[in-house]
């Protein structure tokens, strides 16, 4: 004990700030990992000790074993879900930014669209999912359309907020330089809205995945949502849990791509220097 205290005091004398930063950095990794590990161990222990049948709750180890053993099947189902989510997200992004531009530049569009968008947002949109099947059939079109439908709203709201939050002084400077509206948009409005757009994108990507999964719950021949419904119907809880884990991984992957895109954009459009 005495030795530990000795080194600690020594470290404090060298550079207290750096030591605190390092400790905080380590803690921010160790604490969440530790908690997750604790939950998994508790889960495993409970299932083993209480002898819970795997139909009710499979153990983490058995789920992991299944994923490793049947990764080929899981991958077959993961691909359509991920691709449809990505397509849905990209379309939602394009539609969202387009609507935001319309709302920003046209007063008529703003007055006509904005209240309706907010009203739209109040509808529990999941309730409309079956209608998309009626309108667009049982193929991937209806799932992607539904995914766009529930994912575009946060993009519109965040992007509009970004476009409208531009420094008025800079806009006045542009006007004094006889800048065209296109120049103002590309060199001022869009770059300064980027942080807003990315925060909208981060919400949209998770919603896009939810949209596809719901679509797959209703009708699909493949996909993780389909696998979950199919396995659950056959009381194959282990499979559906494994599908959920893979779904989480796919979600993280897509979210990660957005985060990477944001990091790249930050290199050019962040107020902090590299």
């Amino acid at each position: 004990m005495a030795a530990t205290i000795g080194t600690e005091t020594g470290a404090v004398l060298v550079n207290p700030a750096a030591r605190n930063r390092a400790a905080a950095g380590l803690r921010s990794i160790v604490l969440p990992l530790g908690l997750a590990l604790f939950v998994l161990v508790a889960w495993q222990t409970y299932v083993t000790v209480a002898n819970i049948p795997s139909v009710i709750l499979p153990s983490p180890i058995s789920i992991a074993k299944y994923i490793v053993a049947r990764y080929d099947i899981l991958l077959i189902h993961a691909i359509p879900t991920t691709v449809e989510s990505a397509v849905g997200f990209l379309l939602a992004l394009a539609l969202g930014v387009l609507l935001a531009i319309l709302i920003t530049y046209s007063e008529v569009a703003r007055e006509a669209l904005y209240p309706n968008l907010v009203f739209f947002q109040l509808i529990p949109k999941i309730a409309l999912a079956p209608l998309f099947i009626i309108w667009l059939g049982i193929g991937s079109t209806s799932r992607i359309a539904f995914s766009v439908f529930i994912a575009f709203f946060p993009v519109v709201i965040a992007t509009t907020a970004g476009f409208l939050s531009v420094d008025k002084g800079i806009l006045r400077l542009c006007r004094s330089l006889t800048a065209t509206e296109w120049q103002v948009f590309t060199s001022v409005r869009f770059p300064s809205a980027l942080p807003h757009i990315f925060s909208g994108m981060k919400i949209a990507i998770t919603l896009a995945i939810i949209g596809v999964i719901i679509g797959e719950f209703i009708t699909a021949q493949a996909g993780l949502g389909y696998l979950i419904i199919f396995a659950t119907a056959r009381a194959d809880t282990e499979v559906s849990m494994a599908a959920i884990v893979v779904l989480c991984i796919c979600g993280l992957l897509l979210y990660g791509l957005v985060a990477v895109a944001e990091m790249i954009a930050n290199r050019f459009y962040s107020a902090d220097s590299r």
Partner: protein
Amino acid sequence: MATATARTEAARTTPDGSLVSIRSVGKTYFTGSSAIPAVASASLEVARGEFVSLLGPSGCGKSTLLMMIAGLEKPTSGAIDLLGSPVLAPRRDIGIIFQDATLLPWKSALENVLFPIRILKLPLDRYMQRAHELLAMVGLAGFEHKKPGELSGGMRQRVAICRSLIHDPDILLMDEPFSALDAITRDQMNVALSEILETYKKTVIFVTHSIREAAFLSDRVVVMGGRPSGIILDMPMPFPRPRRFEVEETVEFTQVCRELRLTIEAAHGHAPSTHAAPAGASVIE
């Protein structure tokens, strides 16, 4: 001294004597049913190379008048000519500096200085050298690649000055450019600005509510005020150029500032209205 002579020579030899001509310009804002007069009627001639300050308390219409010269606001009466052609909209021969530096936070100091070049679609490579020179001139050599967030308020405003000069405009319009800075930085900026103008000779219209700043920087101080607002005094500053901070310690400087202060106070009812105009000043209204 040579530069000072050159400037006055230039001012005298301009054909009709004025680069900016403001004739009975008025501005009234209409909000709903009420009309708010910001500037009743102002007339002013500014010669090439002259530094003219518009001085007055907040709400006297000096910034409004400047924005009309910049073409950012339309006069409701009267007309403004710049280099012989009327100001109807913003134009390229003007450099403008606002109270805030209004820099793009994601661009480096150098990129911000070059911003007007990009907007005006001028060849970037031809102005690169000038951008570096300007930044060095204001003491920002070595800070070219810093972003605004890493610069102090004074440094940011120096970048804004460089940006206003990059496309070599004929006239510089400055709207209380140093009023957001602390007093010490502000004094430094005043000296820096007069040094810059010794190198890059420009016609300047400078809006301020600081009497000392106006007196230190200007060839002429134009006091605005009264109800309705107009130009109440147009007074030449007798101090020789180049000016350094020591000018402010002279008795003459203190006297000029006193006259200006009394004029402003008289117009706004804080001092005896019997105050007489100082020698050499021409009272307009």
